[in-house]
């Protein structure tokens, strides 16, 4: 068993309850999700490898990680579809299966199945009666914007329409915990935006959301908190800002006039310098020192801009560190590659 705990980078501040149990003791409220030392293997593959994670009610959490990081397996254990080999999984302080039966959990499975040879309305009606305290059907149809294709048979739906039906099935239970596994796959940009607006509206009253995505911009804008998984382990946990700060590097760009790239590359802190069109771009570990030295030695430097790392940079750095610390590769997966994989 590799020592996972010391490699987990928990970016905690006072608002994030990485120490869930302590949080309970104070508030008396069970966490929405608690995973303790959870393991799950498929044959020789360790899908989830000692995962500890606590999510408080009302949090909106994004799960990031390359394919095979254990995101879907984790989702399945939280919904009681899959049983862990070891460790504990609790949802609102109960076994997942119980929470699901009580209608407290709504799930949008990755490429989840839809009943064949039935119309959208048939599927909605069938599923509606199976929940303990469902949302009114009309509201479900409205929120998921299904009104335009209720009579369409499920096998004839477009990718985006099918996702909206899956979303409808997920919110139908009127759940306190909403789990969305790559919800926006197959949606075009406009529908994606509308989808998140609808989701925000639904959860504005304090529902908990856990979503997995390959679109890092969605994690950045929609989540209060991001957890990053790699090979079934938690490798980072914090707000989007904290995750981004993980990458201390800044990028300085300036006009390609009156300065020499080779000289800029020798400035303190600079770890990379290149020409990008009409501008020069420097990567630096300490933008303040680099800028002071640049202004002192390069009086011609003009049109300066300093940009902090994006979530994508942070994610790539995390993945690289994870790879380096383990001596394994992640099959060269990058977020760009991941977006493609996600169809």
């Amino acid at each position: 068993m590799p020592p996972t705990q010391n490699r987990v980078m928990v970016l905690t501040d006072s608002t994030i309850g990485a120490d869930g149990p302590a949080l309970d003791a104070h508030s008396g409220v069970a966490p929405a999700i608690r995973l303790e030392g959870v393991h799950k293997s498929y044959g020789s593959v360790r899908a989830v490898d000692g995962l500890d994670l606590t999510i408080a009610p009302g949090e909106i959490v994004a799960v990031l990680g390359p394919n095979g990081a254990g995101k879907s397996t984790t989702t399945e254990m939280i919904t009681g579809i899959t049983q862990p080999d070891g460790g504990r999984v609790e949802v609102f302080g109960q076994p997942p299966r119980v929470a699901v039966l009580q209608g407290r959990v709504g799930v949008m499975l990755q490429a989840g199945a839809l009943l064949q040879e039935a119309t959208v309305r048939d599927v909605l009606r069938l599923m509606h009666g199976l929940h303990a305290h469902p949302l009114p059907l009309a509201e479900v149809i409205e929120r998921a914007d299904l009104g335009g294709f209720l009579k369409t048979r499920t096998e004839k739906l477009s990718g985006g329409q099918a996702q909206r039906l899956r979303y409808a099935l997920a919110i139908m239970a009127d759940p306190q915990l909403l789990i969305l596994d790559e919800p926006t796959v197959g949606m075009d940009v406009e529908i994606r935006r509308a989808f998140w607006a609808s989701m925000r509206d639904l959860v504005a009253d304090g529902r908990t959301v856990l979503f997995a995505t390959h679109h890092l911009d969605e994690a950045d804008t929609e989540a209060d908190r991001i957890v990053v998984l790699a090979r079934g382990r938690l490798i980072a946990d914090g707000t989007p800002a904290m995750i981004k700060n993980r990458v201390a590097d800044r990028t300085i760009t300036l006009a390609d006039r009156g300065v020499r790239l080779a000289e800029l590359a020798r400035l303190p802190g600079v770890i990379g310098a290149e020409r990008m069109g009409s501008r020069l771009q420097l990567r630096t570990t300490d933008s303040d020192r680099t800028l002071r030295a640049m202004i002192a030695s390069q009086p011609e430097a003009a049109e300066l801009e300093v940009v902090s790392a994006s979530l994508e940079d942070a994610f790539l750095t995390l993945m690289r560190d994870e790879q380096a610390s383990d001596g394994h590769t992640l099959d060269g997966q990058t977020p760009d590659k991941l977006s493609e994989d996600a169809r």
Partner: protein
Amino acid sequence: MTTFVADRSPRSDPSRPRPRRHLSAPVHYAVHSTWLTLKNFAFVIFAVGMPLVLYLVFSQTFASGSTPDARLASAMIMVSMAAYGSLGAAMSGGSQLALERRSGWFRQLSVTALAPRSFLLAKAAVIMILVLPSLLLVYAAGFVVGGIRLPVAVWLASLGLMWLALIPLAILGIVLGLWVKAEAVGGVTTLVLLLMAMLGGLWVPVDLMPSAAQALAQTMPAYWLAELGRWPMLPGTSFPWVGVGVLIAWSAGLTVLGAVGFRRAAATSKR
């Protein structure tokens, strides 16, 4: 274009009206699932239409005329075809399950208030409802077209006994749905249906079979399904208790097989 609706009062208001569930989850599932199946053209043709047509053809060919013997022969054919049709309906319920298992719909259902065990019970209930059209329509044809006249009590006893005798066959359908891959389930189901029908003497009367086949037939649920259906029509014959025993044994064995298959299906259903 797309709106997804943005203005809504928050849900936390406890006074907000909620739709009340009128039916328990398994009953709701059984009712809706039955309705969806009855809307399915292929099901209606094969499980309901075909036995009806077969009865009409066979009875007109082999049991035409209005002698009491011809009426009795027509009634026997009617029971065989009703048994064949209901057997087919029971099998097709199982193949549906295999398809749902492959597509992952099985998993989608498992994240509702319908517990997996209740799901299988509901599925069995659906099959027990879906066998009824085959039975009733063939019997109706026997009355209307075949001119079969029997006391009401005999009709009801025959239908009731056949319906009960279909229990192990409904379980067999579920077992096939749990064990057979979706790609193969169509073929396997048809094969099992034909074997059951042939060995059970639904196609060719058992009396015409060689003795070994006759002995084998007496271990088959389809044979006893038809025997129980005929018994009320043949006064003076003793009640086939052996058949009840055979059917119970099949039910027990298949339930065990189903329980094992269910555990396996839950663990390996498409991820």
